[in-house]
């Protein structure tokens, strides 16, 4: 009796989903021609949150590294963009890329310090480091100290000739970064690093005994996500045109909301952060003027999700219908084994 095994990754659902995804991306790419300026700004915000959520989700959901300090890299990216463009005369788009690179470089010593702490202590340690950056930048008088600085008008004109052109460019950059963040998680998870990360998340000692280099894997993931987070941060403040330490290193804007998005959408998946972002913005439209109650509601939903359905909305959906839209898992398909099973 011959048995044949095949390893599949894509499923019929994932192929359909990918085609739909491509269509949605095409429609979104054309948004500057069909959407109003307010809508574009909102979409930019949505894309940046999708990107930040993917990065946080990659760290926590696959790397087992729960960080409450990702605002460190958002703020660094923003400040580096402003500093490079204003003082070194780097063109804004080149400064954007360099800002991401610098964030990744600074993540190297940061990781060396933060990795001395484990689990929950790692989480608080990253928060301390982000606070050090915030307080440090508040002391940097060249960058405006505690009150921050604006991007000079000449540099703003360098981005693009007219305001609509600038907004369209920032829009495409945001869309591109969100896709890049999704692509980065997708490719990383399909690579051997992804296998190593999943193994570490499930059991660190077991994966170590099988030869997975846990420290190095975590380190690579931490630095890579820091770079991408820095890039997104640089774009956020390129859109805002103004930066201050409290806005740049805000734990509630760049980490708390992102954590809620990932937890509600579903941790440990690519779909979860996207769904979480959509839910978050829908809720925000509904409850825009609730003030503090809105945050209480959001926190309450996140806590309830964690207690009732720790895998979030996407976890419930994918379990109920056995769905996986982004094919990152390997499935073993056995053909011609039925006869054996009966025998």
């Amino acid at each position, binding site marked *: 009796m011959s048995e044949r095994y095949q390893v599949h990754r894509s499923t019929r659902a994932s192929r359909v989903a990918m085609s739909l995804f491509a269509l949605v991306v095409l429609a979104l790419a054309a948004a500057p021609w069909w959407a109003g300026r307010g809508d574009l700004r909102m979409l930019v915000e949505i894309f940046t949150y999708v990107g930040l959520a993917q990065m946080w989700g990659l760290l926590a959901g696959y790397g087992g590294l*729960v960080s409450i300090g990702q605002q460190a890299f958002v703020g660094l990216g923003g400040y580096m963009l402003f500093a490079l463009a204003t003082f070194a005369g780097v063109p804004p788009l080149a400064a954007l890329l360099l800002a991401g690179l610098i964030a990744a470089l600074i993540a190297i010593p940061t990781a060396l310090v933060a990795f001395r*702490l484990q*689990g929950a202590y790692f*989480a608080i340690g990253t928060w301390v480091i982000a606070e050090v950056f915030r307080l440090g930048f508040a002391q940097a008088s060249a960058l405006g100290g505690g009150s921050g600085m604006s991007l000079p008008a000449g540099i703003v004109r360098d981005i693009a000739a007219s305001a609509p052109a600038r907004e369209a460019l920032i829009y495409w950059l945001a869309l591109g970064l969100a896709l890049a963040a999704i692509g980065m998680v997708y490719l990383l998870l399909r690579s051997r690093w992804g296998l190593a990360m999943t193994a570490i998340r499930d059991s660190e000692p077991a994966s170590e005994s099988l030869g997975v280099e846990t420290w190095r894997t975590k380190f690579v993931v931490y630095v890579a996500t820091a770079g991408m987070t820095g890039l997104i941060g640089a774009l956020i403040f390129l859109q805002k045109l103004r930066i201050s330490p409290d806005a740049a290193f805000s734990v509630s804007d760049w980490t708390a909301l992102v954590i809620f998005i990932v937890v509600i959408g579903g941790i440990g998946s690519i779909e979860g952060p996207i769904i979480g972002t959509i839910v978050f913005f829908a809720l925000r439209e509904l409850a825009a003027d609730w003030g503090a*109650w809105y*945050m209480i509601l959001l*926190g309450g939903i996140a*806590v309830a999700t964690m207690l009732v359905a720790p895998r979030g909305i996407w976890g419930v959906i994918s379990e109920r219908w056995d769905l996986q839209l982004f094919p990152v898992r390997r499935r073993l398909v056995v053909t011609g084994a039925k006869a054996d099973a009966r025998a």
Partner: protein
Amino acid sequence: MDWINAIIQGVLLGGLYALFAAGLSLMFGVMRFVNIAHGDFIVMGAYGALLVVSLTGIHPLWTLVLVVPGMAALGYLGQRLLLNRTLGDDILPPLLVTFGFSIIIQNVLLELFSADSQKLQAGWIETASIPLAGGLSVGVMPLLIFASALAVIAGLQAFFYRTALGRVLRATSDDADTVRLMGADNANVFAIATAIASAVVGIAGVYLAIRTNFDPAVGPARLLYAFEAVIIGGLGNLWGTLAGGIILGVSQAIGAQIDPGYQILAGHLAFLIVLVLRPQGLFPKMKG
């Protein structure tokens, strides 16, 4: 003389930080559980004291009589009803649930008490001071807080090492499953540990309210100070936590002496230096 004064004030401030840290240290010790909302619980205690004072008009120090048992009861129920459900091998649930609590508490306090900065007035005891040699003096209130920190830590130490319940808590710290086999109810033991930690949080909250200005958003910074004191001192050692609090307080005081903008930064940097040079803390857990 300014420097000596700064160091003395820093040591006394360290007592307050040790009070912040003792509860955090205790919960981690027994349950391997880190409460991200710890700082916000302290601030909740401070607002509890504010509420009691504004309702009854009693002296702020007397609010301890109500706030401490109140926080302990809240801690017991919170652990029993909610937090026990998050405990397990996965570190995500407790971390993310308490992070959610942190944001919820801050916003509920904001809704109830507004963002205005508050402070409790404790009358003569706040301004009274004891003169020392060389024109230096120490305030009675900071001294009282420091003495309270000593008493709380000595009390916790005696409780852990001299009582039957303390023995159960220490055993749970070593191996929770085996303790359950021996007939202890883990859910109850954890809730008792949280109740004790919350009582200390209540004390810290009342002192915070008397000693400094506070508003609904100051919780996270208190969590960071508490955490730094625990790590500097070494995990699992309460006297080490006191030493950690003092080192943090002195670093902040020295930073502030250089430039007021460096106060908090200096504390964080002292913590990072200890973390790099001695990640196990200065006084890791001793046998005994």
